[in-house]
């Protein structure tokens, strides 16, 4: 048997080496939504500085054969052998995948508020009605039952309310529950947040049309948490809402200066199907509603959650401008947006507010 141990080990190492060297390398990781490292250039300078070695280590791990399967093996071991509560901060509860968003990061909240205050002081006047609403992440509805760490979401809301005293706070947390979110993704489901849109509209002094149709896409939707969990779980189905105002509205992508569609069906087959809502991560998007009964405009400072709720709000406005300050410097906004007499809503998820280093 000693011989078998030696032979098995030798075969294992040889096979591992050959696969590492000769197997074609992936260049992109769908689950992490990032480019994988490529083979570093073999140059004397790189070797002398140690850069080649550091980069090679990253390359070797990033392009390891069957990497996704090995990540699944690790997740299964962590969850079912070591019974860890989470794996890389991701856990599964009741079929929903969520991230442990903890603790409440006050510095991050202060940073976000500072950015919002800058916008308020630079662009807004008394003629602008300013609103704030915070979208709780999925952890808010899952953590307590599954005994995971959970921020004090009431304190979170309270703090944002206090720090942003220039904005009227609209609470939406009580309208939400875990089923309003995708099981495998961070985001909320558009077809289940119509009541949230109505609450926001009502508090901002407008009314929405109740003419909605819900459509279900046939493709499976594997959200961002699916890849992170690396566990074999059921996919979600993607649904979207249409209606008279939504159908007749035209959408302009201010980042790339072109007209786009409200729902980009090409993105459904792409790396992140949630990007079908207003074409994903764009810094500036304008929805124009030609059928609007009054000239009421909204500027929506938002993160990705805003992409799916903006179409639901359009029936109450003649124009909604979505601004994502993760992708545009706020000091350039005057070049693209006229703030006069517009309502302004800061609508952000706790995920972004609690990790606000992404805000410019």
């Amino acid at each position, binding site marked *: 048997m000693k011989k078998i141990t030696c032979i098995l080990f030798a075969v294992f190492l040889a096979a591992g080496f050959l696969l590492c060297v000769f197997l074609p390398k992936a260049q992109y990781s769908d689950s992490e939504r990032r480019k994988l490292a490529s083979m570093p250039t073999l140059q004397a300078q790189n070797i002398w500085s140690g850069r080649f070695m550091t980069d*090679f280590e990253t390359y*070797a791990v990033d392009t390891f054969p069957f990497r996704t399967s090995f990540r699944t093996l*690790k997740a299964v071991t962590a969850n079912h052998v070591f019974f860890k509560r989470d794996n890389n901060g991701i856990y599964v509860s009741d079929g929903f995948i969520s991230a442990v968003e903890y603790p409440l990061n006050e510095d991050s909240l202060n940073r976000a508020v500072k950015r919002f205050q800058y916008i308020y002081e630079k662009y807004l006047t008394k003629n602008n009605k300013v609103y704030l609403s915070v979208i709780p992440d999925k952890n808010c509805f899952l953590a307590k039952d599954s005994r995971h760490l959970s921020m004090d979401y009431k304190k979170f809301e309270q703090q944002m309310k206090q720090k942003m005293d220039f904005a009227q706070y609209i609470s939406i947390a009580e309208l939400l529950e875990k089923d309003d979110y995708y099981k495998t993704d961070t985001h909320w489901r558009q077809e289940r947040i119509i009541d949230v849109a109505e609450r926001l509209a009502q508090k901002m002094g407008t009314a929405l049309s109740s003419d909605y149709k819900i459509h279900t896409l046939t493709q499976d939707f594997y959200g961002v948490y699916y890849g992170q969990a690396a566990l074999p779980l059921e996919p979600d189905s993607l649904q979207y809402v249409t209606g008279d105002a939504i159908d007749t509205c035209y959408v302009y992508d201010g980042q790339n200066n072109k007209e786009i569609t409200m729902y980009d069906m090409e993105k459904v087959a792409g790396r992140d199907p949630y990007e079908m809502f207003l074409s994903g991560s764009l810094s500036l998007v304008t929805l124009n509603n030609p059928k609007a009964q009054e000239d009421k405009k909204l500027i929506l400072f938002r993160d990705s959650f805003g992409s799916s709720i903006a179409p639901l709000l359009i029936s109450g406005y003649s124009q909604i401008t979505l601004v994502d300050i993760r992708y545009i410097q706020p000091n350039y906004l005057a070049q693209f947006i006229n703030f006069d007499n517009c309502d302004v809503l800061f609508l952000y998820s706790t995920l972004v507010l609690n990790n606000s280093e992404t805000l410019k």
Partner: protein
Amino acid sequence: MLFSSITFLYYFLPLTIAFYFLSPKRLKNMVLLLSSLIFYAWGEPKYVFLMASLIVLGYGFGRLVETYRGKKTGQVFCILSIMISLSFLVYFKYADFFITNFNAITGLGIPLLKVVLPIGISFYTFQMISYIVDIYRGEEAQKNIINMAAYIAMFPQLIAGPIVRYSDIAKQLEERKHSWDRAAEGIRRFVIGLAKKVLLANQLGELCNVFRGSDEKSVLFYWLYALAFGLHIYFDFSGYSDMAIGLGKIFGFQFLENFNYPYISASITEFWRRWHISLGSWFRDYVYIPLGGNRVKKGRQFFNILVVWMLTGFWHGAAWNFIVWGLFFAVLLMIEKVWLLKYLKESKIFSHLYVLFFAMISFIIFNAQDMGQAFSDIKGLFGIGGVPLVSAQALYYLYSFFVIIVVAMVGATPAIQNIIKKVSCKSVGEKILNRIEPFVLLVLLLVITAYLVDGSFNPFLYFRF
């Protein structure tokens, strides 16, 4: 390069083993040397020349010490060689510590050197000193510079020990056996060491990092940290030693054991016979005994103990907390020598609790950024300073790491080894164990690989869209 890396496991090791076993006997040490230089240069391309110079100097001095052994000149060469080796160590490891403290005392502002510490310098300097001293004491100097260089630079023990003494492997450098049995034993030892490092130590280290970054400290969390770090450092260090010993066996070497279940000790004296054995015995043989050891008056003996343990602490790192850590053990060892040892023998439970408690406290000092943090962590254990008893975070991580901690606690005792021994006493049990061992090792390797691969898991910061 780290043993617990994909580069080592799937690139370096297969190539090195293949070249080693395919090369003729006379070239094996050359293959080992070249692979060791690549291994070292992978992490420290510039410092490979520093190590090479030390080796050449050591080789030359070794020959000189041997030639003039028994004469005053031999002693001079021996001392000179030790001084040169130590001067490298002092310059790279301790210069900034001395400058900082000198500046603090005198109020001067001498700029720090800020030199990068060459990996493994503490280990290979000590090996070099042991080589020279062993020759001075009568061991034959190595005539072949390749063999000498292979001894100093040998990658299995180069960066984290154990400190292999020349006298222990001098013969093996010239003549060693390779067998299926020894290689299989080496493979088992290597894989178990790797598992200790990757599956236990790394995860316990993760818990320690969570504690350090937490703003929600509580008494429970301090205890959890103390326990986790005590286990982390044991599995990290003993895991590396197992890997080194295992790799040594694969290449036909027999390195001495470095750990022997230290947490089952019934006294601190016993603890240090079981913890980092190669360092303890190095200090005993090359510092403590030359200072007079036990064969001197009590006062002088205690002075010797203080010196040895201060140096032991200082060897671990150029900071006051390491010196305090060493002196902490010196004090405990002296107390045991004077009166405690006899009482410890009377109660097994008390003696074990005593060792575990003081080992834990010592490692809190060891792992602190400075003495201020060490005191704050120790105070936290006892709830001094208004620390709450429990926090949500402490409870969460206690549940989350519970199984890992239990596995680590059991693994830190010889329980599993004893069970295996008992089972293999019976021929059926031995047969079964022998049959399943290769497959258990294979599964372990796959799981370890999974953990190493997942270590690269690095979600794009903007994944939220």
